């Protein structure tokens, strides 16, 4: 087993990985940019080294600096997390050159499966059904636009190097094409250093259902079942669950076999995800392969009981996958929501800044994977993901009830988050019935949210009182509200209490 692992990432996934290291007795080495010095992953790691200025192209995307730290800190393995360099074949190659183990697939498998066009060519050869569209990067917008005409709108523009909805645009008609092409290209360039795009036909109201696979170095490839990630805003997954409300054991087996077939064809090793679109007839079409750990991996962990990061490390260390895992069936139901520093009231603009106060949920069935803490300043330079709230329950209903409960306990000030959006989603009838598709949320968001279904009649009154007390405190603590630590109750409080007990609330 490894002695020391370099975590080439930041935020919640860096924390997730160093926890796995600690549980395995492996030392963890964090890296940080100038604005991440006080980040949670630096606080929790065994060692931490600076790798440059805030912009990721000068820090987290600098393979040379990462290899330098790995060498000097004496690491024998590197975990890339997701995003940044996770799907860049140059990293595993650099690791090989430096004599450290890359915890992930070989560069060749990344190339064979990672790029969406190559992945689709392979899928066709492996008899995995695919969505019609271009197989290769398209250089000229004109070519792309004429292909769009042939396929018929709507079409989807995607970054060759893409992931996480970045560098992706839905084009409803020819008029929108030029600007969509421009925005997707420049977003892709900024996110991945690669502006190349391709396009495909856009299915109407499909579900996004993906299969988690694990492959060891000894030829074994297994499926851990599906995750449904149909609740997306502009192709950005927001809610993920396992099992899918519509996947039957039969369909699970079919999709799992297709995913395993494709992984074998690509010589895949370690953890990966094969994404499919599933239409109303429950026919599935290959979408792409993510040759890395997914943001949403915890929902699979919660229903299988497996620790995917530990398994990634074990596989990279050459361990074999036990046979038993081929027959894994999900237990209960798990659901994850992605908490972002963004403002749903204001067109989901990013909302970086200092976290002034917060209340995090705990208790039965609740798991939190996060990368922030109270008092920390969420930097403006990276993805706005604060963390993930994951609930588990015996049934989808119990899971949703727990998630809703946790979201009611969740509160943060200083930055805005999308928590209220999730409270809205979890109250929607369609969602409760599992009647969702990849455009469901975008359609929902065209309708303004109904005012407070939560029936807190006095909330406005309480807010006004708090505002006055807050203003009073601005004059200096002395004039403020009673502090919690003051002990004996005041006369008026006793008054109030007597009055409370003299009447039915």
């Amino acid at each position: 087993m490894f002695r020391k692992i370099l975590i080439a990432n930041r935020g919640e996934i860096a924390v997730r990985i160093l926890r796995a290291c600690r549980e395995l007795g492996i030392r963890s080495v964090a890296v940080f940019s100038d604005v991440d010095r006080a980040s949670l992953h630096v606080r929790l790691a065994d060692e931490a080294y600076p790798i440059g200025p805030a912009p990721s192209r000068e820090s987290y995307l600098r393979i040379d600096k990462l290899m330098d730290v790995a060498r000097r800190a004496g690491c024998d393995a590197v975990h890339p997390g997701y995003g940044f360099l996770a799907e860049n074949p140059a990293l595993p190659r650099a690791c090989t050159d430096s004599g450290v183990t890359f915890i992930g697939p070989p560069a060749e498998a990344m190339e064979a499966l990672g790029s969406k066009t190559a992945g689709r060519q392979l899928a066709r050869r492996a008899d995995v059904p695919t969505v019609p569209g271009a197989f290769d990067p398209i250089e000229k917008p004109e070519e792309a636009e004429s292909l769009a005409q042939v396929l018929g709108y709507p079409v989807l523009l995607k970054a060759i190097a893409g992931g996480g909805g970045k560098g992706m645009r839905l084009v409803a008609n020819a008029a929108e094409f030029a600007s969509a092409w421009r925005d997707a290209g420049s977003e892709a360039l900024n996110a991945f250093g690669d502006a190349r795009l391709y396009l495909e036909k856009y299915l109407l109201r499909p579900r996004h259902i993906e299969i988690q696979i694990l492959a060891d170095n000894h030829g074994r490839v297994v499926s851990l079942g599906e995750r449904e990630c149909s609740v997306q805003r502009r192709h950005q997954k927001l809610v993920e669950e396992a099992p899918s409300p519509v996947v039957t054991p039969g369909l699970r087996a079919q999709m799992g076999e297709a995913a395993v077939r494709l992984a074998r064809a690509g010589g895949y090793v370690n953890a990966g995800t094969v994404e499919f679109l599933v239409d109303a007839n429950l026919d599935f079409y290959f979408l792409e392969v993510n040759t890395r750990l997914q943001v949403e991996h915890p929902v699979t962990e919660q229903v299988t009981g497996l620790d995917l990061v530990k398994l990634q490390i074990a596989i990279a260390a050459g361990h074999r996958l036990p046979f038993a895992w081929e027959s894994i069936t999900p237990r209960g139901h798990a659901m994850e929501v992605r908490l972002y520093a963004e403002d749903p009231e204001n067109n989901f603009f990013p909302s970086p800044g200092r976290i002034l106060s917060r209340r995090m949920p705990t208790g039965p069935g609740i798991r939190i994977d996060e990368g922030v803490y109270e008092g920390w300043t969420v930097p403006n330079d990276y993805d706005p993901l604060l963390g993930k709230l994951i609930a588990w329950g015996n049934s989808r209903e119990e899971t949703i009830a727990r998630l809703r409960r946790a979201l009611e306990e969740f509160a943060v000030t200083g930055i805005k988050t999308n928590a209220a959006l999730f409270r809205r989603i979890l109250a929607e009838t369609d969602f409760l019935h599992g009647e969702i598709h990849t455009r469901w949320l975008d359609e929902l968001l065209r309708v303004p949210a109904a005012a407070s279904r939560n029936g807190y009649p006095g909330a406005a009154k309480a807010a006004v009182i708090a505002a006055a007390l807050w203003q009073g405190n601005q004059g200096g603590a002395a004039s403020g509200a009673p502090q919690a630590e003051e002990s004996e109750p005041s006369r008026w409080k006793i008054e109030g209490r007597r009055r409370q007990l003299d009447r039915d609330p």
Partner: protein
Amino acid sequence: MKYEIQIAGKPCTVELERDAARWSISLDGSPADVDAVELSPGVFSILLDGLSYEVRVSPEPDGTLRILSGLEEFTAEVVDPRSWRRRRHGALEAEGRQAVAAPMPGKVVRLLVQAGDRVEAGQGILVIEAMKMQNEIRSPKSGVVEGLLAREGQAVNAGEVLAWVD
């Protein structure tokens, strides 16, 4: 101390009076059955007729207060003698031509209009990149772009005025 507070558009009066070491509170003139403690700066536990609310107050760049009360979110403005002038000023400004302000810190990556252009409400004025996402900043109203203060490549702070539309 008496406070005039605008909340969700509606005006309201809160009176805080010292009573022994604590405050007694009345709302719009009538004493309220309230038990309030501050748990930490800006975080209050308020029992109102026995109902338990946790209320979080934080100031916004524009001088208003963002208030989370239970699951509800409010924007409030406190008008007390000390802050009278500042609030008024803010109010007046809002009635003039509309400012297009940066909703978050970021970098202006593209201008979509030029000074003097006629724009529709909701039409894109420029694109700001923050946290790796490109965000189109739209016009608050139909009118003419009077001042276009932002330049491509410029870094901007939250609340910074980028353009004026009249």
